[in-house]
């Protein structure tokens, strides 16, 4: 009995069980026609492999623009929608999120951090806070281990969504716009860098401002805090209170480097944090800072920030963030951890009520040069 080509192909591809293989081998010994068919097939297989190897080499020689694909991906509404539900300041510029610890107790820190970057303008019935300082706190490998351990014990698995309800309004996906449209969308003068030699003309992305509210469920939050061993709990009066973060309109100017890679320059007003009437922000802060799960070293640094209401706190993990000067202003330079070779670094500072960020695969000097050239 002769074998049709499908069977012979399966034989070549070693897809047949042992017994079938032997049958075919025995048959081929005797049958010239099958032997010839097999030889032709093998020939076609080898030729195809060789050609595909060649083609795949050709394709590898053509660079793929991963950077552009990444930018496009992050603009997809499905991705943006998930990002929106997360922390607070990272929504202003997602890249900041890269320095946050991707492990346990993030919720606790996130609350501490998102309440921290605030400034009380004691309005009669609202507390409105704005960022005026940027400060770095150092998270040591020991702290990281502590946080990680919590995560492994399952105690760090607290999503901010378990503590209350999050609502976002007015959010639209970022859009590519003209320079004029970007200019018109903000109430301050956009700055542009001077010498961007070797870069394309910028494209502008506009993320319109929006607001996110968090309605606290005190019982749930306290239950979780208790499981952390907290002695101090949130006052019952906070139940159902709405905390609002107003995210500013952000303009990003994206310069592609001719040799690949990209530099992005972001500009925005400070986000605002609005606490409801009569909420004692200090009391909330005290509860959060007294949580026993917070490593001592982090607690001490958070406590030491005097003007905590108007300070944006950037965690420094393994030397990833350092306080630097940008002209006469204080700024922070954030670098990706060494294992993330392709990550972007970012230089962040604020001047005259506007927060600026220069990011890309830049070292401090290069980022400072761009920052200094901005007019």
């Amino acid at each position: 009995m002769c074998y049709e080509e499908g069977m012979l192909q399966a034989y070549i591809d070693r897809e047949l069980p042992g017994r079938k293989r032997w049958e075919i081998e025995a048959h081929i010994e005797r049958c010239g026609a099958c032997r010839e068919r097999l030889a032709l097939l093998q020939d076609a297989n080898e030729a195809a492999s060789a050609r595909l190897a060649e083609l795949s080499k050709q394709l590898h020689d053509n660079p793929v623009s991963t950077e552009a694909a990444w930018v496009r991906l992050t603009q997809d509404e499905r991705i943006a929608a998930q990002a929106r539900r997360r922390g607070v300041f990272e929504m202003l510029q997602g890249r900041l999120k890269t320095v946050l610890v991707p492990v346990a107790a993030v919720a606790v820190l996130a609350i501490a951090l998102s309440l921290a970057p605030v400034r009380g303008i004691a309005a009669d019935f609202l507390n409105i806070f704005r960022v005026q300082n940027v400060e770095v706190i150092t998270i040591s490998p020991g702290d990281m281990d502590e946080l990680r351990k919590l995560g492994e014990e399952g105690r760090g698995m607290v999503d901010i969504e378990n503590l209350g309800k999050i609502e976002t309004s007015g959010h639209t996906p970022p859009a590519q716009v003209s320079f004029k449209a970007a200019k018109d969308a903000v109430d301050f003068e956009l700055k542009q860098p001077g010498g961007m030699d070797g870069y394309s003309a910028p494209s502008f992305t506009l993320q319109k401002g929006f607001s996110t509210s968090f309605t606290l469920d005190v019982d749930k939050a306290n239950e979780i805090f208790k499981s952390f061993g907290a002695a101090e709990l949130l006052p019952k009066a906070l139940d159902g209170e709405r905390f609002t973060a107003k995210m500013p309109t952000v303009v990003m100017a994206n310069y592609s480097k001719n040799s690949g890679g990209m530099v992005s320059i972001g500009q925005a007003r400070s986000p605002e944090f609005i606490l409801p009437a009569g909420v004692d922000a200090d009391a909330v802060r005290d509860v959060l800072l007294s949580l026993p799960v917070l490593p001592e070293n982090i607690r001490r640094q958070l406590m030491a920030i005097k003007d905590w209401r108007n300070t944006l706190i950037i965690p420094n993990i393994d030397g990833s963030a350092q306080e630097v000067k940008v002209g006469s202003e204080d700024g922070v330079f954030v670098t990706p951890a060494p294992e993330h070779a392709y990550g972007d670094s970012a230089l962040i500072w604020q001047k005259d009520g506007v927060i600026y960020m220069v990011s890309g695969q830049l070292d401090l000097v290069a980022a400072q040069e761009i920052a200094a050239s901005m007019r």
Partner: protein
Amino acid sequence: MALKSRLKRTVAPDDFAFRELFEANYSMVFRHLILIVGEQATAEDIAQETFIKLYERPPEEFTNLSGWLIKVSTNLAYNYLRGEKSRKRREMADMSITEISADDCFRASETGEVRDALRRLDYRDRALIVLKFYGFSYGEIAEMTGVKKSSVGKVLARALEKFKQAYERKS
């Protein structure tokens, strides 16, 4: 903690965990899709869809992430090409034009003869050849393309023959 839960918990689009996976795998997925769908813009679209799937519903195991990405992207490409084919058929019927290449989207472009030859194949044949070249088993190929496992050998043998002819005619 399993990478999956890490990813689930922490992936915001700018998170390193996700970005790292994206940067490590995007060009592989894109090149694969260029082979399957042929056209750059379509390959980019489907590559993006693939990573959105990774973001939204990451696999249980990350031990063979590239295998997972190839499978998902092939499935998406297949759905697209199938839709494209029937769309063209409908358009053809409307316009009563008689000749059609099912794979117009694999349009002539930059690179050489091999690509030309591959381009001339039906998308199913093309996918089978490419997936076999990567070393997938018949079972996996069947799962990705919807060709019955017991027919993979047969379809593949014919596809390879057509590929050879297309290539030899060209050169």
